[in-house]
């Protein structure tokens, strides 16, 4: 029963946080800019145009009223229209989201697949060459700006080795000769499902460099945190007792210790997801990846504030949801948490 109560309370707080997030997003986009209406039209606006737009957008009303109108639209799934593309922001987001998600998932897949085992091995062989190597690579991974690493990888794999494509999600001509039928909108999965091998052979290499660039920071962070979590567990009394009983070393490390290091590792993975989400912005610019990041950055520079508001809200909602999922997963894995 306490578990159910914990889940309920945790979901309730998330809803309150989301309401707070919507107020803050509203504040950033409507209150901070000195003249939102003038921004809406552009630099060469005449006063009467500004007044007209103000009325049209409801900016002449008091702020609480504006917020209620905005909230009402939000609940109906209306994020407003983008100023630069003149299309609904929600449509822009849903159209581009699969590309970003494909990149994000691939990167996180690599990051977890490499980061967690590296962290465990590093803790297992603490102070040995392997440990030093893993620590060096992971600290370099978290110190390298993604926008710079992407360039270095482009130089090396495209210019020097001629091994991987420079940018984009799929080669231009393939889009017409072997179009990928959209099912999930993940090109990799869609081309696989439809047996479109030629497209698959083109899509997969396009994904490698951006995913690798995006994964560098998460790999470093996950490896470091997994190592720290493992080291903390390995110092515990019950591990020493298990060793004293003569239980084999790998059983102690990979069975007894690992189980208790899962929970902190999970927190870090959740956290890195959020880091990676903003990381996609830089990676998408470098690799000309047609996802949310490219759209967001264009909107940020154009002060396309309905788009910025929509994206900020979208990003924060994603972040809150990831945190919620991680907390619930932990309560499921570790019963002690829900009893706190």
């Amino acid at each position, binding site marked *: 029963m306490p578990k159910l109560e914990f889940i309920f309370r945790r979901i309730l707080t998330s809803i309150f946080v989301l309401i707070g997030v919507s107020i803050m997003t509203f504040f950033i986009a409507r209150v*901070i800019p000195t003249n939102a209406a003038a921004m809406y039209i552009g630099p060469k606006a005449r006063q009467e145009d500004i007044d007209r737009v103000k009325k049209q957008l409801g900016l002449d009303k008091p702020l609480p009223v504006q917020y209620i109108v905005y909230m009402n639209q939000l609940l109906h799934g209306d994020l407003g229209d983008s100023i630069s593309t003149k299309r609904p922001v929600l449509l822009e987001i849903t159209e581009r989201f699969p590309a970003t998600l494909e990149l994000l998932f691939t990167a996180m897949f690599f990051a977890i697949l490499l980061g967690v085992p590296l962290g465990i091995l590093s803790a297992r062989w603490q102070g040995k060459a392997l440990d030093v190597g893993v620590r060096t690579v992971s600290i370099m991974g978290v110190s390298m700006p993604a926008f*710079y690493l992407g360039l270095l990888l482009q130089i090396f794999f495209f210019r020097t080795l001629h091994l991987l494509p420079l940018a984009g999600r799929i080669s231009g001509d393939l889009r017409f000769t072997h179009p990928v039928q959209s099912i999930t909108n993940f090109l990799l999965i869609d081309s696989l499902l439809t047996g479109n091998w030629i497209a698959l052979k083109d899509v997969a290499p396009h994904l490698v460099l951006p995913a690798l660039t995006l994964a560098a920071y998460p790999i470093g962070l996950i490896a470091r945190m997994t190592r720290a979590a493992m080291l903390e567990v390995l110092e515990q009394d019950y591990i020493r007792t298990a060793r004293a009983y003569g239980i084999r070393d790998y059983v102690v490390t990979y069975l007894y210790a690992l189980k208790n290091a899962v929970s902190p590792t999970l927190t870090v993975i959740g956290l890195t997801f959020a880091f990676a989400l903003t990381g996609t912005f830089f990676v998408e610019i470098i690799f000309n990846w047609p996802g949310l990041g490219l759209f967001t950055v264009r909107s*940020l520079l154009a002060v396309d504030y309905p788009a910025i508001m929509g994206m900020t809200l979208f990003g924060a909602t994603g972040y809150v949801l990831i945190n919620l999922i991680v907390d619930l997963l932990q309560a499921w894995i570790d019963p002690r948490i829900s009893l706190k």
Partner: protein
Amino acid sequence: MMNMEAAVSTSQVENTRTFRHALGVIVRDPLSLASTIVIILFILMALFAYQVAPHPDEGAGKTNVPNSMLAPSWEHPFGTDLLGRDMLSRVIIGAQPALIVPIGVVLFAVLIGAPLGAIAGYKGGWVDEVIMRITDLFLAFPSLLLAMAIASALGRGLDKAAIALVVSWWPWYTRLTRGVTISLKERYFVEAAQAVGVNDWVIILRHILPNTISPVLVQATVDLGTVILAMGGLAFLGLGTQPPAPDWGLMVSDGRTYILNQWWIATFPGIAIFVVVLAFNLLGDTLRDIFDPRQYR
């Protein structure tokens, strides 16, 4: 009163002792020592950028088109950019927005965040509740996304990017200081001060805050790498420093177009960011091993 004085001085002795201990560890560990030296050199270079740079006027933005796109040479060790400006000078002067401004950002974030955390932790009750719920709200956003949105709403520019970063970073220090304060509240020197009837605000200012300095300082050093990366990111996106002023992130962005042929334009500013962030992260790791500010969370 005697007891109270004694208790206070004990806590201060403790602080100086851990500080000396930390210094000892850093000096003995070659990697930490090297990082510290690199950081100090970079900061000095940034502070005296106009004296150090071989072509300070070009570094600041003056064009010299006949020298366009020269490869690295003795004359121009880092080459020149499209407008013929000496890249070495631009990297040196670009250290001011890329390195000194983030240090200022963290400083301001601490100055806002730490007192709020001390008040929340010491007062407790509804004051704590209000401050911490506001903090939660800011932390519900991915920090960099929040900073981007604010920077864009304020209009582009270095000052705006710096404000945006302060606004998105202060809550971390509120959270940390609150935790430290709650553990300090039970210590004798605070109880002694309460017993003799010292005003709450005086206790917070004179007895709590000075003792939160070392964990907060450690956390700030650990965070500096991340803030430098964030600042570089904002500059790269065009939300920070505006051309013709130099900034590492902005220079990487400029050089991106020519990366396949004139590789030097993006390479050197990129290395500068990497080296500085790496140095801060290495030093931060050592400091974290000594103090572990996370124990208060």
